[in-house]
């Protein structure tokens, strides 16, 4: 399988306009699987939230108790199914929860084996230096997202956000989701203790989902700003055409 070979970011910098093998097959499969899965999870999750739109902290929480947040009613153009049907929403949510959880597991195992995590997502200490963060932030605000010397490498904000999604937000979604299952939490009570109760787990589930939605919005905006077509193409075929830098464009 040629696809498991890692993208080569150690060679001499590739010239703008040339193509670079950037995303492995497993990364691309997981990405598009998640596009569908997360879409279904959010749509069905909003229907489930509509069933009791109050969030609490602690072991329990119901109408007589004090909610910390009453999320607004999710409109029918965002929910699955469109008309309120808790039973059908749960069918979608609990089937695709399996795809979501086992998809993450498969991606994590394959990304450790093909060294995607170690090579592309490892955060080096010097990248976290304030001067470096400040420099990258300014580059972002100037819409320059790629290091011309190493265009295939992720910048620090990409690394941080991908690490946050892969190792914090999605695992937190799965863990807090499992705590909501009375059977699973009876068998594995440490999960309940870790999150501080079922009502808390439901709140954590909502907060982590909100974090994922925020990530998706920022991700989509940045894909469009960074060059929508080459970015989407690279996530389909694996090959990314290095964009011509704006400054170079102007200078030319």
């Amino acid at each position, binding site marked *: 399988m040629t696809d498991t070979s890692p993208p080569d970011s150690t060679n001499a910098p590739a010239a703008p306009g040339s193509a670079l093998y950037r995303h492995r097959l497993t990364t691309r499969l997981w990405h598009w699987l998640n596009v569908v899965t997360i879409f279904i999870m959010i749509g069905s999750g909003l229907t489930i939230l509509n069933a009791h739109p109050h969030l609490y902290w602690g072991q329990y929480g119901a109408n007589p108790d004090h909610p910390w947040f009453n999320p607004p009613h999710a409109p029918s153009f965002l929910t699955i199914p469109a008309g309120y049907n808790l039973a059908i929403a749960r069918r*979608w949510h609990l089937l695709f929860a399996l795809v979501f959880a086992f998809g993450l597991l498969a991606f994590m195992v394959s990304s450790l084996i093909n060294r995607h995590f170690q090579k592309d997502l490892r955060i080096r200490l010097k990248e976290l230096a304030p001067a470096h963060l400040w420099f990258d932030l300014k580059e972002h605000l100037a819409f320059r997202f790629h290091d011309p010397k190493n265009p295939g490498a992720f910048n620090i904000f990409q690394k941080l956000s991908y690490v946050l999604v892969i190792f914090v937000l999605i695992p937190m979604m799965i863990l807090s989701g499992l705590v909501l299952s009375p059977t699973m939490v009876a068998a594995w009570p440490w999960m309940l203790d870790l999150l501080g109760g079922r009502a808390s787990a439901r709140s954590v589930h909502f907060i982590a989902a909100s974090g994922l939605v925020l990530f998706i919005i920022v991700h989509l905006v940045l894909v469009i700003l960074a060059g929508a077509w080459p970015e989407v193409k690279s996530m389909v075929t694996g090959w990314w055409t290095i964009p011509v830098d704006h400054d170079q464009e102007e200078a030319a």
Partner: protein
Amino acid sequence: MSAIISRRALLTTGALGAGALLSGCDQVANTPSLRKILFSGEKINHGLARALTDRNSLAKEYRPDQMSPLFRVNGTSNPNTASYNAMAAENFANWRLEVGGLVNRPLSISHQALMAMPARTQITRHDCVEGWSAIGKWHGPMLGTILKAADVRTTARYVVFTCADLYSGHAYYESLDLIDAFHPQTILAWAMNDRMLSVAHGAPIRLRVERQLGYKNAKYVMRVDAVASLAGIGLGKGGYWEDRVDYDWYAGI
């Protein structure tokens, strides 16, 4: 293709795709063959839960100070039928729990006899399918004790509960497999929060199944029957909500 046009094309495609996916989901749920795949999640989740977890694991039991100050009433708050009102007026003195079906010794247990049985007290969390939870103290005999006394036949696979409250003219009903029926925390509670079970919470007895969602915890239980199959019960899916609105029979998630 200019960058602006391709950007617009991608955005349009994305928006159309999202819309198609949303309405597609509703199409899937309404197409029998695809609906079957959608509904297969219940069996996979049930199988996984049984395979990955200890069948005898106990739901968390809480301290008295962790109980909900007010345990909300849900579902039927009063069956309010002539026969139920008559029983309630007598404080269920002449009510009897009928235990039958595939048993070698059908039983008819009076309220007094039920309350005299060895009982379990548990402070547990009630999780409604809608998302809220409440912690209460339940007290009553283990269902397993009663089923053993009735001597359930080996051909039985499920236990069906028939209740006094009516939903669109039909008595509420629910069912469990034998694993949950014989689970030590599965009790027929006749007391709640140190008081006799109130009408609003399911008097004279409410089934407690601590590892499943609220709708499995049937109130106003009148009959318990051991059966070999759920095919002949209601519309065949084992419970009122399962038959009428496609709720999962396995409500452990």
